[in-house]
């Protein structure tokens, strides 16, 4: 029993380690996940399993800034589609893509809890609310 508890406690640090690496490097390299598996004494598949489960963890390289535009119903009702289009035309990529200069990645996300001021998006950890297509260029300028 105590052995089992120790082993489970070891697992605790895995998600935190993945989150830290994501913040530091922008994505989770496969070599990193292999090393992590060794140090946690877990199969690589287990590490990859955790890494691929969460939407804020990525196993592919992303841009320096990640734009997450909400596509859920409250934002959709507030013409969220026009924001998605405005961002796409501003940076010239679609959802799931990264700009050639590595400055932005674009994702469409489910509800981010900013529904009192829709449409809304997150850039990295920053909330942006009450969006209009006209505001987009100005907001994106703040991210290098």
């Amino acid at each position: 029993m105590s052995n089992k508890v120790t082993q489970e406690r070891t697992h605790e640090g895995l998600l935190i380690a993945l989150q830290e690496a994501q913040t530091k490097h922008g994505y989770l390299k496969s070599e990193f996940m292999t090393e992590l598996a060794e140090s946690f004494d877990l199969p690589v598949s287990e590490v990859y399993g955790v890494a691929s489960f969460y939407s804020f963890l990525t196993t592919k390289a992303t841009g320096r800034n990640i734009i997450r535009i909400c596509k859920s119903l409250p934002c959709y009702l507030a013409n969220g589609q026009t924001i998605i289009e405005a961002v796409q035309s501003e940076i010239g990529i679609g959802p799931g893509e990264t700009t050639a200069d590595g400055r932005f990645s674009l994702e469409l996300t489910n509800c981010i809890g900013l529904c009192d001021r829709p449409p809304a998006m997150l850039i990295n950890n920053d909330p942006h609310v009450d969006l209009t297509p006209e505001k987009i260029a100005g907001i994106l300028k703040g991210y290098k």
Partner: protein
Amino acid sequence: MPEKRVVLRNCGAIDPRNISTYLERDGFRALEKARREMTPEDVINEIKLSGLRGRGGAGFPCGLKWEGARNSPGDEKYVICNADEGEVGTFKDRYIIENDPFSLVEGLAIAGYAIGADRGYIYLRAEYHYLLDLLLGAINQAKDGGFLDGFEIEVRLGAGAYVCGEESCLMESIEGKRGESRYRPPFPTVAGLWQQPTTINNVETLMNIAQIVLNGGDWYAQMGTERSKGTKVFSVTGDVTRAGVYEMELGSTLRELVEELAAASDVKLIQIGGATGRILPYDMIDTPLAFESYLGAGAVTVYNKSREVLDIVGRTMEFLAEESCGKCTPCRQGTQAMLEIVERFLEGEGTERDIKYLEVLSDTMMLSSLCGLGQAAPFAVLDTLKYFRNDYEKQFAVTKGVA
């Protein structure tokens, strides 16, 4: 009925970055009272007397949950605050943390005292990373003030997964794993975090605790209905003039919330409880909001007459299919199958047989899914089949002349 503030009593009245403004409004007096004048059992009895039920949507009696964890044997016990609100249209917990993180910290510390836990976790969704400093500031100020002696609070950030708001997924995530739901029993009060007795309470539930300890369970039980005591915080969005957070006594009607407070007009239908919630047509607007009728976690999304029913259902199913954790077949496959069928209707290729299939599939999912996600996923389909069946029939292939 106007707004009634118990949970939100300090919102706007205190500076969430300055504990002294909280102390001026009886801050941490309930925790002191509990520790000095009450046994843990007294605290639990007071919560039981209040009739407080869980505000995350499931409505489990809080006092019973705490009693269960207190009475379960365990080397260590844990209290967890679920701040992973991800239900579509919900933002009340964000509003609470933004405005009054201290009441949350105090509520969690009282929970720890009551069940005998010296460690608490707050699981904050990744999308709310910008609240982290504020929350840590409140915890550190409480610690510096000597209010948390013998009780440690750790904030854990989620990593982007709606399903982690489900309690068993949330515990898996704190343990560093994929956020997949667990078989129950055993329930968390017996074998929760690291298989130890654990209570998991929603942010809003914990916001009520200090007030109940200070004013008594009897005081609290005077508010609300027979089976739903106290107040509820609602987040109202969609086709309304005044979207926002409103706290009302339980049993208040949907009309008071949607038309009087949020100033909606021309309403077609209302979704209560987000993607896993219920859909009601406008003619049910006088329904009281309570656990015995409709409530969920308090997300109320309003749709006006310009909105298409099947568009709403399709987007709801798309959300659920994406967010299913994938562990159990009825939910993983069921949400996907439902989405595909609803899309057929959207394209004008539905059949009578599809409707029957949706109904059978709903039964299967509700009966056999592992957690609330799959069990509640069919509601949007079932409710609209009940109240807006014509919207489906309009999209039959034969009606459209395709077949």
